[in-house]
């Protein structure tokens, strides 16, 4: 008390006492952030470190491994948990005037070096908002209803859960009641997915359902908002920047690239959640490994074999497209592909044509432009991907050529789909099932064409077709 009076009298000092800066607290809570990239002033951060509200740790940790003959340096990145020696760079650092090490694995989020600090919030926790509004007016099919109830039961019982729902079953809606239950208990929720496109599709829908709740969408290139959001919708990549943050975590499309291929992403999910909470999974194409994992953890399992409109999944038809690579490379579009495209153009239906490689797609673009100039192409590195998908939905673009990047998450009413080179290795059975899942999603247009153009039928193509047929023939149990 005496201290406070003293500070008030001498007005040259700005009193900060033990009160934390609310904006800094709300931003940093649950995050692990590169100090030099923080949206707050260095002065403010230093103050909070002195107050004991912010902890720091070095960006890269050195683990020297001694074995009998060799002394080898190993490193681990304290942000992304990368420990692959090929992804660390030792260099002479002009700032420290000595040798430093940085991590290349997460460099696009700002370089983390052995001489850069990561900061964490260890001060008072943000005040939790109490009034959440749940404004969802849709109705569930009995299957959705059941899955939604089972998910909430698993969350309450603190056990893992897998929702296995066919493409177009309405799996996002299933999450709404569970999210609301968590919000009511003051929990913080993350919905994470490997794909930016899925984040872009999910975020506005979830925000709409919870209009009074702060929701942040995080993906590469998204703006950093300086507030506390009880709902975070993020790419799994962005979870590198969280630690001990979430009371509930839902991983959507866990089987999508690159999540299954990148162990550090799986670690990121584990690190971002509070240590004692399980992970909830939602996908149309669970891997055998995931199903096994859930079984082993004695987690809950919900299965939805039907689309919300009750119509069956479109079954692919096969069309041979012999030597399509050679034909496209010699600037000739295969005849069947031309006929298919012309048909969609005549009937004024939006369409997606999937290609196995960017290179082949780029060779095909000018050939498609001879049929119709208003056809666009998208791939992973395309900065205008989001706009192009919106334009297809708004019918401003007639059709899109794409790589597997659009296999998931997007919904375009009445879209017709072709896969060129369906036998290529990149088109796994789950990729093909997901691609097929784009067709016939809307209530008004529940069917549509799904064609696999191929140079020989692959095992994966057959596996996908078999699985689609199996799902369509699954006995509907009464609920």
């Amino acid at each position, binding site marked *: 008390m005496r201290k406070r009076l003293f500070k008030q009298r001498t007005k040259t000092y700005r009193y900060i006492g033990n009160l934390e800066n609310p904006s800094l607290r709300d931003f940093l809570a649950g995050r692990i952030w590169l100090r030099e990239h923080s949206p707050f002033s260095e002065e403010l951060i230093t103050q909070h470190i002195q107050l004991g509200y912010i902890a720091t740790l070095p960006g890269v940790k050195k683990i020297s491994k001694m074995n009998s003959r060799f002394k080898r340096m190993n490193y681990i990145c304290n942000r992304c948990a990368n420990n692959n020696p090929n992804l660390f*760079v030792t*260099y002479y650092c*002009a700032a420290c005037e000595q040798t*430093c090490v940085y991590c290349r694995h997460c460099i696009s989020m700002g*370089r983390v070096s052995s001489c850069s600090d990561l900061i964490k919030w260890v001060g008072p926790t943000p005040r939790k908002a109490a009034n959440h509004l749940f404004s969802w007016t849709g109705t569930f099919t009995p299957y959705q209803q059941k899955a939604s109830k089972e998910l909430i039961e698993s969350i309450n019982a603190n056990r893992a859960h897998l929702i296995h729902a066919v493409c177009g079953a309405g799996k996002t809606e299933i999450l709404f009641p569970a999210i609301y239950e968590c919000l009511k208990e003051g929990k913080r929720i993350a919905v994470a997915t490997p794909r930016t496109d899925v984040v872009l599709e999910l975020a506005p829908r979830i925000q709409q359902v919870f209009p009074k709740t702060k929701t942040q969408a995080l993906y590469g290139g998204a703006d950093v908002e300086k507030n506390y959001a009880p709902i975070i919708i993020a790419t799994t990549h962005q979870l590198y920047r969280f630690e001990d943050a979430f009371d509930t975590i839902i991983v959507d499309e866990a089987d999508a690239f690159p999540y299954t291929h990148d162990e550090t992403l799986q670690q990121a999910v584990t690190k971002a959640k509070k240590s004692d909470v399980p992970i909830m999974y939602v996908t149309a194409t669970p891997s055998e490994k995931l199903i096994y994992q859930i079984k082993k953890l004695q987690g809950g399992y919900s299965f939805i074999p039907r689309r919300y409109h009750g119509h069956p999944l479109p079954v692919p038809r096969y069309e041979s497209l012999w030597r399509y690579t050679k034909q496209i490379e010699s600037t000739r579009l295969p005849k069947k592909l031309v006929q298919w495209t012309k048909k969609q153009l005549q009937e004024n239906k939006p369409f997606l044509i999937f290609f196995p490689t960017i290179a082949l797609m780029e060779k095909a673009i000018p050939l498609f432009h001879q049929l119709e100039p208003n056809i666009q192409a998208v791939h992973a590195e395309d900065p205008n991907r989001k706009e192009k998908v919106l334009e297809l939905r708004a019918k401003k673009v007639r059709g899109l050529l794409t790589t597997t990047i659009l296999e998931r998450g997007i919904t375009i009413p009445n879209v017709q789909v072709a896969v060129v080179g369906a036998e290529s290795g990149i088109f796994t059975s789950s990729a093909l099932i997901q691609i097929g899942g784009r067709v016939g999603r809307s209530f008004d247009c529940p069917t549509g064409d799904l064609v696999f153009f191929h140079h020989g039928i692959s095992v994966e193509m057959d596996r996908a077709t078999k699985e689609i047929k199996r799902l369509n023939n699954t006995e509907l149990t009464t609920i």
Partner: protein
Amino acid sequence: MNTICYLCSKPLKSRLTWKQLIMYEQQAVICSTCDSKFELVKPEEQKSPDIQALFHYNEAMKDFLHQYKFFKDIVLKDVFRSEIAKALKNADAVIVPIPMHPEKIKTRTFAHIDELLKAVGIPYTHLLEKITIESQSSKSKMEREQSAQLFQLKPNSIIENRPHILIDDIVTTGTTLKHAKAILIAAGAPSVKAFTLIQG
């Protein structure tokens, strides 16, 4: 040894080619797909007879420069070492990098132009020093041309009676190089040419 492409992280097919054995060429650190995205500047496309630029400033090069300078990914100094070596190894000249302000070197943690030369093992001499800390690219073309001296001769520099070659990462208007050249000429350099990685 590096086994993945520095730019796209795909595995590198590491094979020792005859070219590498005979020409003592360095092993590539990027894959052929990434490599094919860079466009060499043809002799007739050079903007000035005194400036030799290696590559065009296309999308791939923009990404490269961004990752190298702004993400501070210093390993990328090795990406163009064969091309840089080919262009400069046999130049009988004093190699003079365009300098960075010492404050700027500290924040970036390395001098990106010096590193390009170090990666190739080309000896260089710093004859100039930067006076202002502001960056050229944040100014308009007019501002750049009107701006006061950017550099000064380093104290106690000895100018040899040999051709000089200035080294920069990118040439856009040529103002930077013009300033640097004027100083070297005034100090007694018999001729000053320039080499840049990129033509903007």
